[in-house]
């Protein structure tokens, strides 16, 4: 019995998938473990559903299917993912390139059965493949907490700081730990044309450009003098490394 979760923003599209699942139930026993109409809703309901396969629409409001899949992949017992799309040339090319499974709408029963069989035996997609298939930065970072996913909107993040195995995600109100590499995060979020760009100020730290209020010079005497970032609304000061200082100063001068 394969447990299937359906995420699609259009009601008729979900109805259609349920009909098809019923049609193939003889050949491939299955049950609908849950459904959701957008990404955020899916992330709330998915962990408790013990779904094995997620049928996932790509174009959804709030958070698109590709980003949703990346967050789902952080779950311990992450389901396999089969993307469903009406027409999205760009995404389909990316799927082919990264060996991700997808179905085209309108979906045929035979294709659905084949995809479910393959997915149920194949397991969850690799996070790296999903990251490569995505065409832009995520809107959220996800933190897996006791088998549930906490989403942190990227626009709320003040800084990201690497400490040993983890990266601390600091918002104005909280701190989270995520298991990602700072280098990959920098690659994803430092583009100047992004809505919420980050800048590297130190080997271990990325700061949201919008959160920088100014700089303070500190030290002197015994200690070597260096610059610190003053952050809007937070008492913490973040040291800027000597190596990064010219780049940071230039960026801020542009601002």
């Amino acid at each position, binding site marked *: 019995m394969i447990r299937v979760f359906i995420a699609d*923003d*259009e*009601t*008729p*599209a979900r*109805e*259609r998938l349920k*009909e098809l699942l019923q049609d193939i139930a003889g050949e491939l026993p299955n049950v609908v473990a849950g459904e959701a109409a*957008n990404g*955020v809703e899916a992330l709330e309901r998915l962990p408790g559903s013990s779904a094995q396969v997620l049928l996932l629409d790509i*174009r959804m*409001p*709030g958070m698109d299917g590709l980003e949703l899949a990346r967050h789902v992949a952080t779950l311990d017992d992450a389901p396999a993912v089969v993307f469903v799309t*009406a*027409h*999205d040339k760009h995404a389909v090319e990316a799927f082919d390139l990264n060996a991700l499974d997808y179905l*085209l*709408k*309108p*979906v045929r029963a035979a294709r659905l059965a084949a995809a479910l069989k393959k997915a149920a035996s194949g397991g969850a997609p690799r996070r790296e493949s999903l990251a490569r298939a995505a065409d832009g930065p995520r809107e959220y970072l996800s933190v897996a907490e006791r088998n549930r996913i906490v989403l942190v909107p990227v626009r709320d993040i003040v800084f990201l700081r690497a400490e040993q195995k983890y990266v601390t995600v600091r918002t104005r109100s909280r701190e989270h730990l995520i298991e990602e590499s700072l280098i990959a995060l920098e690659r994803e979020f430092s583009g100047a044309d992004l*809505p919420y760009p980050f800048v590297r100020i130190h080997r271990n730290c990325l700061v949201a450009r919008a959160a920088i209020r100014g700089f303070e010079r500190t030290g002197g005497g015994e200690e070597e003098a260096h610059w610190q970032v003053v952050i809007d609304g937070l008492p913490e000061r973040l040291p800027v490394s000597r190596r990064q200082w010219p780049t940071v100063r230039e960026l801020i001068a542009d601002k």
Partner: protein
Amino acid sequence: MPSIRQNAYPDLLPDFRNLAVMARVLVGVNAVALAGTLYATPTLGAALDRFVFVAAFLEPLLLVELMALFAVSPWLARLPYAFGCAAIVGVVCVLAGVYHGAVRSVTHEAMPSLGRTLVLALLMAGTLLAYFRLHTKAFSPALAEARLQALQARIRPHFLFNSLNAVLALIRRDPKRAERTLEDLADLFRTLMADQRQFVRLADEIALLERYSEIEQLRLGDRLRVIWELDAAPSDALLPPMVLQPLLENAVYHGVEPGTGVGEVLVRIERRGERVHAAIENPFLEAGNQRTGNRMALDNIRERLALFFDAEARLETRVANGRYRVEIEIPYRRA
């Protein structure tokens, strides 16, 4: 087999009720008059003096002729091209002759002969007609192109496949509604594949908008709310096909689909004096990417409006109070 020859387009007489056509006539005639005086006089200063004198004779005649052509324009449009040209040249020459006589009876200045005036009028009218013919010809491939563009820009595959999928979902549960939706889709595609060079009645374009919104409603359910303000819409007005539907489609695609809540779309069409005014408004969503994602469709519509109305059509977009708004204004022409 349908022909792809570009001269499949019939020659059309210029529309003398179009401001751009009038402007071209005024500029053309005056440019020729200026060139003539420059040629006939030795210095620039003398030429300008001479031109002022010539213009005093020329301008009233030109305006009277344009007014006469404006008045008979609808009647001219019904004539075959060659007869129409003859009629225009006839009107111009007769008026020039009468005007010549009238000026001669009130002025003591030495007047050029009637024959010279008539030949000049004849040459000028002929030249301008030839110019307008070439001008239309130059646009003919553009018109063929416009048709293709309209087709390509309009069938958003995303919409087609999602609609078919929605109909499939309906077939077992609500066969009647499935039937209706397929009929709506058929109408939509019939219009898409129709000749994009002919004007359509506003009433038909509105019916198309309603069909289209029915289909979107089926897919999006409560998330889409369309408000129609059509009481003052002149149903007999003529407009190019597929101008409003793409705008409504954009409104849904950029303003409703990317949002999680209810998206309200407003469609208002009304007559304001001799102009028809249409506005389509939707929530402006950051995720909708409307400012950039929209541009191609808007450019396409703007080009087609220019082909049909020259400089007399207007298309503007605006973002205010979290709403995105497209406005179109075209001259009011009756069927």
